[in-house]
């Protein structure tokens, strides 16, 4: 009997813990949909300038680590007095994921090719990467309080632009961003299956 519900972990804020249950559910479903995918399909692009599934999976890991670092205040103007946003991001991603902020290769130039470093990655490699990201952010999310969720965070973007987001929006964005690329991954799988039909 298919049952659709969410197992909400115990956290300081119900709202933040619910987000974690939701993104874990998305990840579980994504992994089900990717079961058996080959390295060739992970590295396949419909045409130059378009993302591969491998790039999207790397991007998902990078983005969730990034936004939770933003929520934690690591990209506020005050926190960046001694180092630039790019340096902080580089350090954060290398420490947590073992890849840098640009290693997803996104955004690709119009005629760009997928990053060579990902060419040999297998599905197991990407699962490990996403697993590392999730373990890292889960600990942070479960420590967020309701007050934290309502808080607004100022951010200096990697290009130096100043923006502000509420932590509630950040949680929403990490989820909808994940879902959006998940939808694109499903689309790419169809395109890969159809690639010889013309």
């Amino acid at each position: 009997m298919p049952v659709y519900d969410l197992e909400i972990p115990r956290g300081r804020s119900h709202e933040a813990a619910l987000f974690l249950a939701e993104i874990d559910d998305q990840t579980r479903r994504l992994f089900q949909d990717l079961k058996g995918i080959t390295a060739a399909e992970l590295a396949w692009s419909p045409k130059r300038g378009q993302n591969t599934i491998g790039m999207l999976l790397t991007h998902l890991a990078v983005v969730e680590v990034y936004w939770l670092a933003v929520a934690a205040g690591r990209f506020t103007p005050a926190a960046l007095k001694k180092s630039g946003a790019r340096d902080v991001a580089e350090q954060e991603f290398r420490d947590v994921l073992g890849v840098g902020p640009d290693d997803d290769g996104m955004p690709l130039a119009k005629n760009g090719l997928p990053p060579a470093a990902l060419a040999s990655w297998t599905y197991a490699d990407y699962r490990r990467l996403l697993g590392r990201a999730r373990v890292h952010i889960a600990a942070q999310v479960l420590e967020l309080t309701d007050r934290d969720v309502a808080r607004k965070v100022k951010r200096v973007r990697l290009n130096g632009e100043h923006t502000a987001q509420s932590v509630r929006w950040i949680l929403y964005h990490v989820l909808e961003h994940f879902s959006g690329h998940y939808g694109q991954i499903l689309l790419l799988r169809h395109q890969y299956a159809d690639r010889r039909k013309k």
Partner: protein
Amino acid sequence: MNSPAQRIVSRIVPEPGFRSHEVAVKVAEVALVHEQLVQAASGLSAAQLGWQPAPGRNTLGMLLAHIAVAEVHIGCVVLRAERDSDIMGVLGIRMDDDGMPLAADGTPPPRLDGEPLPFFADLLERALAHTRAACRELGDDVLGLEIVRPPRPDGSVRVFDRRWGLYHMVEHAAGHLGQLQALKHLLP
């Protein structure tokens, strides 16, 4: 420091008028993802909305209509725990008019042929109004209650709760938003 006019501020503001804070946040999220959908489709012509990349593949218009249909259905059978959904009564189109899922060699549904963006934006607005109405009186105490659907022809039974229904509305719309953005790049 940039001037205030250049600052980008992103917030989810729980919508007022709901019994449950959790529901108010989710409704705000559904509203925001709808805004993103309409923004992503803005400027597209009726021909572009009806363009099919290959037989059996969805058009941008089909995706937009499908989101509206799915949300009204979830609103009826999950949030309101009704036996059936009244898609025609809410949206003015039938449940099958989104054309999804298309057969492997299927062509887009005739009902959507030639429809411009305001038609699809209106479907999304109607769906959101329906969701808001279905959510207004929901309390936290009913979000985790099991809703058991009538058996399907194969005998299987699906079980939902309202919390999942609200989450599904957001991730479902966001997933198709991602596809819409990707398909735009393929437009001839």
